[in-house]
């Protein structure tokens, strides 16, 4: 039972433009740290992720080894940090594929209409009809088990999502009066497409891209967990968790990489929600 006066609502909306909620600042900080890990892992840990000290295997978290050590005596924190680049960049690739291919398809379908729309819409329907994870699994099987291929496999489903949203946005913008006016003023199709339709349509696509970045991290971690990513010397987060599940007596081997994954995805989702609200 909340009674909010409309006056306070507008003033708080004006304030939100300047004020960033503390949760969002924390989310940005976590993402900055993760980006730091993936660009320069050496700055954040002195341990080698691939070389272990057998005498120090399966140690619990301590000041020396923040996340403990694994069954070969390798520092888990170092493995998580060094695995960040491939876990995060593959999600980035997946979203980039979805954004560009899906954006183009949606733009073409929405702007051209007619047969183009019908054919492209069916293509999107097919992609959405196949359960997402199953689609990723058969595509990564077809391409071969590498993290990069897992990224492509994840991105193909994203194409359908972005195409569908982009199409809806383009159709909405096309019906706007100012677009009609631009046509009447003699603007060419390309000019109107690039100058008016695309910028307006892409505004709602940005928060979606951020949201799907988080989802892609989860899907790629799932593929890595099943062993469809790079093989073991690599230390993708999903792969670390998969290795850790064989050593559940030493639970930090699961919990540490899992918490890093969750914190990252949670931050990404928080930022996406904030972007959508401020828009």
């Amino acid at each position, binding site marked *: *039972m909340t009674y909010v006066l409309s006056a306070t609502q507008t003033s708080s909306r004006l304030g939100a433009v300047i004020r960033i909620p503390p949760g969002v600042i924390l989310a940005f900080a976590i993402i900055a740290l993760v980006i730091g890990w993936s660009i320069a892992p050496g700055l954040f840990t002195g341990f080698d992720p691939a070389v272990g000290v057998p005498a120090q295997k399966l140690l619990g978290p301590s000041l020396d080894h923040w996340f403990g050590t694994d069954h070969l005596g390798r520092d888990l924190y170092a493995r998580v940090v060094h695995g960040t680049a491939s876990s995060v960049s593959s999600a980035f690739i997946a979203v980039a594929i979805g954004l560009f291919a899906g954006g183009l398809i949606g733009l073409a379908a929405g702007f051209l209409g007619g047969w183009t729309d019908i054919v492209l819409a*069916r293509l999107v*329907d*097919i*992609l*959405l*009809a*196949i*359960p*997402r*994870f*199953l*689609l990723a*699994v*058969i*595509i990564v*099987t*077809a*391409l*071969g088990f590498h993290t990069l291929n897992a990224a492509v496999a994840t991105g193909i489903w994203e194409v359908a*999502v972005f195409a*569908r*949203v982009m199409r*809806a946005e383009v159709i909405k913008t096309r019906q706007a009066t100012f677009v009609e006016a631009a046509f009447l003023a003699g603007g060419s199709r390309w000019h109107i497409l690039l100058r008016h339709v695309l910028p307006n349509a892409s505004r709602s696509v940005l928060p*979606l891209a951020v*949201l*799907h970045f*988080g*989802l892609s991290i*989860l899907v790629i*971690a*799932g593929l890595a*967990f*099943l062993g*469809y990513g790079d093989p073991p010397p690599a230390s993708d987060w*999903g792969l670390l*968790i998969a290795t*850790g*599940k064989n050593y*559940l*007596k030493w*639970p930090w081997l*699961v*919990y540490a990489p*899992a918490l890093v*994954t*969750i914190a990252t*995805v*949670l931050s990404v*989702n*928080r930022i996406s*929600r904030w972007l*959508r609200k401020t828009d």
Partner: protein
Amino acid sequence: MRHAYLSFAGKRLAQAAVVILLAYVFTFIVVSILPGDPVTNVLRNPQNGFSEEEIQSIIAAQGLDRPVLVQLWSSLSSFLTGDLGLSLRSSRPVTTMIAEVLPSTLTLATSALTVALTLAVLIAYGTQFLPKRWGQGLLRGFPSLFLSVPSFVIGLVLIHVFGFKLGLFRVIEPDSAWATFFAAVALGIPVSARIAEVLIANLDQEARQEYAAVARSRGLGQAALFFRHLVKPSLLPVVTVVALSFGELLGDSLITEAVFGRNGVGSLVQRSVATQDLPVLQAVVSLAAAVFVLVNLLADLVYPLLDPRVTLIGPARQSPTKAVETAAPGAAA
């Protein structure tokens, strides 16, 4: 109205049939570009120990010596008559192989859906009526948190806490009641987040309506208001979300079955991926697509009957699911 519904239903039915067929073709194309030649990889693999005559007879039986388009045509037509072909490895009918593992996956999926619905309604109820100082805001963050946790992590945590620490179930007995329950929880939690998101948004909207204020002023208690008035209109759009989440249930059961060591359709897929058993992969993926499309068709067809406010006058874009589908991945907030 009646005429409008029939033409809407006819259109959706035809659309669904086309999508199922095209999904089959799409899967066929993806599966047939698998690296290497399945004949060399599987049949001539010395591990399998096929003799040359056996290889020739399998190639002839599977029709692998014919052009790809002919193969596609014959496999598509047998798919339509319900024949899913033979496994490349064991030469057993794929239909039998799927039928063997299907009950396990169906049990898992239906229990997961039950868990997801229960959890979503509980969370949504809490966000409406839990006092603010008792963590209403915290509860509102739950769907977002659930969507950020990989389902295999939930599974591993459940195994660690309830299996290892509390000893409620043993990992080597994946079909025991407790093991099935926790597998369903692991699979159901991310799904519950999607349902809860939509449910909370709808409840917020309904609670602001005048009829809710009237009911409160009549002195109706919170639970009565919730169950007698608010739930019904809020649950209607959930039909669509549940139908859409079938894709997630089918796909993620692959991971959950791997985590809990269950023998289901997911583990069949994993085995077929490892051995490049193309007919099995083709069958499972296109069946999953067919199930997903049919469930969503059903939801679309039932929706206008459930909700008298939905009208079907106008162009096809009035289809009630379109808006939700576009906004499905968490955009409902």
